[in-house]
């Protein structure tokens, strides 16, 4: 609003003067444009991070405001790294991570490959397939507990219908052997479309001319698939793995709603364990150290992976 008279004035004045009146210098604009974002990120991301690191050397507990806070040095880190329970949750997380990635990449790539045949109605089906990933993971997790109920749920009856097994003869959530797969199935159901979309982009980025050249050379379809399609789509596949990997390393909402970490600690992923330490036991210092360790882990793994990804891209 206040700009209007200024603009009029500016238009009536020779150019260099106009700039000085209503236009800020480029440098000033750059700062004005970037500063709020940086400020917000500093306040909500970086400052808390530094605070976390600081807290991780103390025995602070939020629910004991009256207690003196002591510096405990590296004791929190020591306790975490020597705790068998935490290694068990790391293993559970790794199992979850690896299998969701394998399944989602295989199914997602296969789907993308099929959709890329451009059959009639492929757009419609693609949109339909994408729907599960638009849901709230917490709501999905909650609803899958219902689907997995042996007596009243859909899942066991569907399996029973297909295999002839008695629906009541197995329990996806209750069985130690099946529960890790229960969370993998739910996550795969939800996120395969994500991998599919990225793969689809990868496949569509391959120029038609390469296949035409291969066709002239009489290369078999099978050979074309392995020498053209896979290498060309690989960077995209790796990208999909990176994003899903980071997301599933952080996994909390879906699994906490689905199994609550049980049976026993079978599906207690690191985020669930961390939540218990931080917001149920209120061992703030200890869980801060835990958070720092997780951050270093994910950051380290991601950096290594990104380097590998860049190498593949350069080829």
């Amino acid at each position, binding site marked *: 609003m206040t700009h209007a008279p200024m603009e009029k004035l500016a238009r009536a004045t020779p150019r260099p003067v106009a700039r000085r009146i209503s236009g800020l210098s480029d440098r000033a604009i750059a700062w004005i*444009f970037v500063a709020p974002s940086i400020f917000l990120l500093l306040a*909500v991301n970086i400052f808390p991070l530094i605070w976390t690191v600081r807290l991780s050397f103390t025995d602070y507990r*939020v629910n004991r405001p009256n207690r003196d806070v002591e510096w405990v040095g590296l004791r929190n880190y020591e306790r975490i790294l020597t705790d068998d329970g935490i290694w068990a949750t790391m293993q559970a997380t790794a199992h979850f991570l690896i299998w969701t990635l394998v399944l989602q990449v295989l199914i997602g790539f296969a789907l993308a490959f099929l959709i890329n045949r451009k059959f009639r109605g492929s757009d419609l089906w693609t949109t339909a397939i994408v729907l599960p990933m638009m849901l709230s993971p917490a709501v999905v997790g909650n609803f899958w507990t219902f689907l997995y109920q042996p007596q009243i749920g859909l899942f066991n009856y569907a399996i029973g219908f297909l295999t002839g097994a008695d629906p009541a003869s197995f329990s996806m959530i209750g069985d130690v052997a099946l529960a890790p797969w229960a969370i993998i199935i739910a996550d795969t159901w939800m996120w395969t479309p994500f991998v599919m979309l990225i793969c689809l982009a990868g496949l569509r980025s391959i120029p038609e001319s390469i296949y035409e050249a291969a066709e002239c050379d009489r290369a078999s379809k099978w050979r074309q698939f392995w020498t053209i399609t896979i290498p060309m789509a690989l960077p995209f596949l790796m990208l999909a793995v990176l994003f899903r990997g980071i997301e599933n390393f952080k996994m909390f909402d879906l699994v906490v709603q689905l199994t609550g970490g049980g049976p026993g600690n079978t599906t207690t992923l690191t985020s669930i364990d961390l*939540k218990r330490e931080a917001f149920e036991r209120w061992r703030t210092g200890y869980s801060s150290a835990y958070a720092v360790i997780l951050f270093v882990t994910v950051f380290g793994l991601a950096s290594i992976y990104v380097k590998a990804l860049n190498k593949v891209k350069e080829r």
Partner: protein
Amino acid sequence: MSFSVTAPSPAARWIAGLLVALYAIVTLLPLAWIIATGFKSPADAIAYPPKVLFEPSLEGYVNLFTTRTRIAEADFAALPPPGTWYEEIVRDQGMVIAGPSRYGERFLNSVIIGFGSTALCMVLGTAAAYAFSRFRVPLKDDLMFFILSTRMMPPIAVAIPIFLMFRQIGLNDTHLGMILLYTAVNLSLSVWLLKGFIDEIPVEYEEAALIDGYTRFQAFRKVVLPQAATGIASTAIFCLIFAWNEYAFAVLLTSGTAQTAPPFIPTIIGTGGKDWPAVAAGATIFLVPVMVFTILLRKHLLRGITFGAVRK
């Protein structure tokens, strides 16, 4: 499409179409089950064995929006006949309506926080992306990577200091606090995406505008923004989906006033047991807005989910 030696044969297409359709049907089954459960009566929802065919009922939706209570039998008998259809449904369960439920408020909170943070994020993100794209910002690459890396933190890990900080400055359980938090989380994605979009707009357009006497700011507003509109829209969709569905921060940092729907929906409870039809109804209603957006903006989905790494 022009003839090509590499185009798949009709048979191959047909098989591909069949397989994809088959997958789509299987994958939509759970979703269909959720929606169908919303229209079951509580008894049908937990029927043993499960019921595929059932008499549709609006009990789930009524229960979603009301709280109900039992009253003493004598009082119940003395009540005047129900005045509305939803009252009648509640009476049929042997109960009376005690008041509205919290679902409406939670949904509204989701709207305020989801759209508020998305709007703020677009304003800040577009500005920052423009600056990164057009000017020499010191330490640009480092800053960009730093912005991205903030998204790698598990939310629970970040939540500890945020919880302490919000408590200290009174942002706990406020709309503003959640809007700022979601904006910060989404900002990394937005800046990356938007920088990609703005990079694609030829600099010559602005230069021409500057020569015509526009100031830098005018050039940004009148030349760059319209060009970047679709990019901004598709970025916004991803910010919105995240803020709309987010659970971990919401469950830890909000309670009475600013709680959004995702932590609320799984906790809907009926008489004694879980009210699955109401849960399903809540989930269905909650899905509708993002579903509509997804269908409208499906062409732009790809770029958003890949942090802009995939073009077109």
